[in-house]
């Protein structure tokens, strides 16, 4: 085992009591590409953030080059040769390639920036990867794939030997993927270790030596890629049984409430159409970046639509802004609660009443204090939000309770269609069940429920029908009572084949 450049043993990490990593072990040899696989939320990113020092582990040991490393900070990880190539590139798009490569460690001569020297060194770093780019080019002017390569060059120029690539091909074309793979093979030959995270399983065969599979924050298995099959990998990723219990209720499917046809909104939403009926929960499944959130945002009027016809209770509706949607009776509990869901510096009371002020306030626009307090008290009780006082800032609540506030503010008003985007992300099991019960109550009341989730078990357990999206298209529809996770995953990875290699 002497040639392991990374060894992570028995790593555990919890966030507000929820275990994200539970006794995970992982290793990487010099000169190999290790695929790190698992569903969304399996803990891959968390594990890599522990390795790169972003998160501090609660338990376990990390050895880099055989040396135990105790206080792993981002700076220390970097000096030990760990570099992350992120899914969202972290570049200053207004600066040049050379300026980005030398950001934070600029070379100076007599106190002035030595631009000529930095440009020369940047050119060398790029040419080592056979990238033909002028280092003086502004990063915002080059394509995303080139930016990614600049980021790799940047990592190598600080002597990184352990490269973590998180979904590096998601934004690339077939030609660009070939270029990236050529670079990966070259790095491998030079003795770098590469950890490769991807949902595009068919890509793996081009570059990968070994795979490590994680599920629900636990290590499942590690195998030589040559000794395994795609089916085996998928079944390890999915697991066999659904462990959580879901309080699904059966109610009769009634009239059609909502229909969307030919919905297009840029690249992430392509010709989407579906219907929602009374008495059912419609699940939307798909991998990260598949366009689930974008579909909900386009329907709700947050992002502009290129085309699309929306019908609510057999009446066509035009939605150009969230205001239009709310007026029509469509509401959205968004995915990113910090960014889109909450005014964290306002009180819980103010957050819950914000979208309801149209009926809480009187005709002159004066907020009726009593009505507001009663509404808030009822919402807090309905969702068992645990708080000291509704006057405390929403930002001071725990993640689960914040999520409940995001849901609560929408349930305080009567709507026809409620869209939940990842309502249970990052919250504990008890809180999840409360949210499930709420969805059930809406379903029984004849209100349309759309439930977007990246966790397949809860979709299978709670939804009645599931539509699966991949690259902005609906790739299939399944009956949740008979569907399996494998079926969902197959539809979720039904990419347009970009790697025009041999058949998988």
């Amino acid at each position, binding site marked *: 085992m002497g040639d392991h450049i990374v060894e992570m043993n028995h790593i555990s990490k919890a966030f507000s009591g929820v275990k994200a990593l539970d006794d995970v072990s992982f290793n990487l040899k010099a000169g190999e590409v290790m695929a790190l696989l698992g569903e969304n939320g399996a803990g891959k990113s968390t594990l890599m953030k522990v390795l790169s020092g972003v998160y501090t582990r609660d338990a376990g040991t990390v050895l880099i080059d055989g040396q135990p490393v105790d206080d792993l900070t981002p700076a220390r990880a970097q000096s030990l040769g760990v570099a992350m190539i992120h899914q969202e590139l972290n570049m200053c798009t207004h600066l040049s390639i050379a300026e980005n490569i030398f950001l934070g460690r600029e070379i100076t001569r007599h106190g002035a920036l030595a631009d000529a020297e930095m440009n020369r060194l940047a050119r060398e770093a790029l040419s080592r990867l056979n990238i033909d780019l002028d280092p003086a080019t502004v990063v915002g002017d080059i394509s995303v794939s080139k930016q990614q390569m600049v980021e790799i060059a940047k990592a190598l120029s600080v002597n990184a030997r352990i490269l973590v690539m998180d979904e590096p091909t998601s934004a690339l074309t077939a030609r660009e993927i070939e270029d990236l793979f050529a670079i990966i093979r070259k790095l491998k030959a030079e003795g770098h270790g590469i950890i490769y995270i991807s949902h595009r399983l068919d890509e793996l065969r081009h570059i990968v030596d070994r795979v490590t599979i994680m599920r629900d924050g636990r290590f499942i298995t590690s195998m030589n890629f040559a000794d395994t099959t795609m089916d085996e990998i998928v079944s390890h990723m999915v697991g066999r049984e659904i462990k959580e219990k879901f309080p699904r209720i059966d109610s009769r499917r009634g009239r059609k409430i909502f229909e969307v046809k030919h919905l297009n909104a840029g690249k992430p939403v392509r010709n989407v159409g579906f219907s929602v009926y009374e008495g059912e929960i419609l699940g939307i499944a798909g991998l990260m970046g598949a366009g689930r959130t974008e579909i909900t945002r386009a329907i709700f009027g947050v992002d502009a639509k290129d085309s699309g016809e929306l019908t609510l209770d057999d009446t066509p509706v035009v939605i150009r802004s969230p205001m239009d949607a709310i007026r029509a009776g469509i509401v*959205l509990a968004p995915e990113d609660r910090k960014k*889109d869901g909450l005014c964290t510096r*306002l*009180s819980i009371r103010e957050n819950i009443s914000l979208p309801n002020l*149209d009926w809480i306030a009187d005709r002159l626009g004066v907020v009726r204090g009593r009505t507001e307090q009663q509404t808030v008290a009822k919402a807090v009780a309905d969702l068992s939000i645990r708080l000291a006082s509704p006057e405390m800032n929403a930002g001071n609540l725990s993640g689960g309770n914040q999520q409940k506030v995001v849901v609560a503010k929408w349930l305080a008003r009567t709507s026809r269609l409620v869209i939940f985007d990842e309502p249970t992300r990052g919250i504990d099991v008890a809180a999840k069940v409360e949210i499930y019960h709420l969805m059930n109550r809406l379903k029984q009341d004849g209100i349309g429920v759309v439930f977007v989730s990246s966790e397949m078990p809860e979709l299978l357990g709670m939804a009645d029908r599931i539509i699966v999206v991949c690259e902005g298209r609906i790739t299939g529809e399944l009956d949740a009572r008979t569907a399996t996770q494998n079926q969902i995953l197959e539809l979720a990875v039904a990419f347009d084949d970009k790697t025009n290699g041999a058949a998988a």
Partner: protein
Amino acid sequence: MTNDNPLKRILAVRGMGQVLTAAAGLLIMCVVFSYVNPSFASGRNLANLLRQIVPILLVGIAQSYVLITGNIDLSIGSVLGMSCMISATLMSGGMHPLAAVALTMAAALAIGWLNGALVSRCRLPPFIATLGTMIIARGIAQLVNGNRNTDSIRKMVPADVVYSAQDAFRDIFYLGKTFGIHNCVWLTLLIFTFFAFLLSKTRTGRHIYAVGSNIEAARLSGVDTARTVTVAYVVSAFCAGTAGLYTTALSGMGAMDAGNMYELYAVAAAVIGGVSTLGGQGILLGTVFGASIWCVLKNGLQFAGVSVAYQNIVIGVIVIVSVLLDVIVRTDMLKGKFKKKTTS
């Protein structure tokens, strides 16, 4: 669920901590200045002091509205100057003050609306948009009377008229008193009460806080963010315009450089009173204390025989220290929060 303890309820109001600190600071200043020079506390000086607070408080309210939405209004001082020059030019030309005031306020509100449209609909950075209108409004102030200060607003009043409408104008906006207190103080109290109510008790006010706290979350909650930002800028222009009328009434004529730098004094009054320049935080009562501290310091230091140069330095220090205190308190809170999250 409700807080029955009235003291707790007062403290629960957002930003009340800094408001109380400012109030305490104001009280201490008043006591110290009265001790140093007893004539500071004379009825005559206090009445004068209240009247000095009026324009600073008006522009402070103006800036507070815009700051709470997370923006800034640099045009406040110029709108004040423009309002002063337009009203004085029209009145000295013989127009009835009522009509002159109406036209003046229309012009001021137009600038406010333009600010709102540029920031919310054209998505210009507020600093740039209001820098532009600041220069434009100052240009208009210079233009209306041919690049000269105006003559007396009483110029066209026949000499035999003892009490003209122009005199009434000056009485309402500066000179006159009712129940022993200047009318302009009553007027400002009325404006303050109305806008404090709008901000704290109405839908529009709630939207202003929401936009300043998280504009994306507000939009997704169905808030018309463009309208909300525009309302804040129009309120700002209304207050700045009113302060311009005060200035006209004060001197009985129009000065082209009236209100110079007032947009920044307004920021000072607002932040001393606990309004956050990052948006979403602050109440108008705080701005009252902020504006009062500003004027009491100037007035009190004058009575104590401190030169203008030192007055400026002291006021600058107060601005920095009051916000620094808030930053320290809030950083500690954040640290506390962070600890709780990682250990639980």
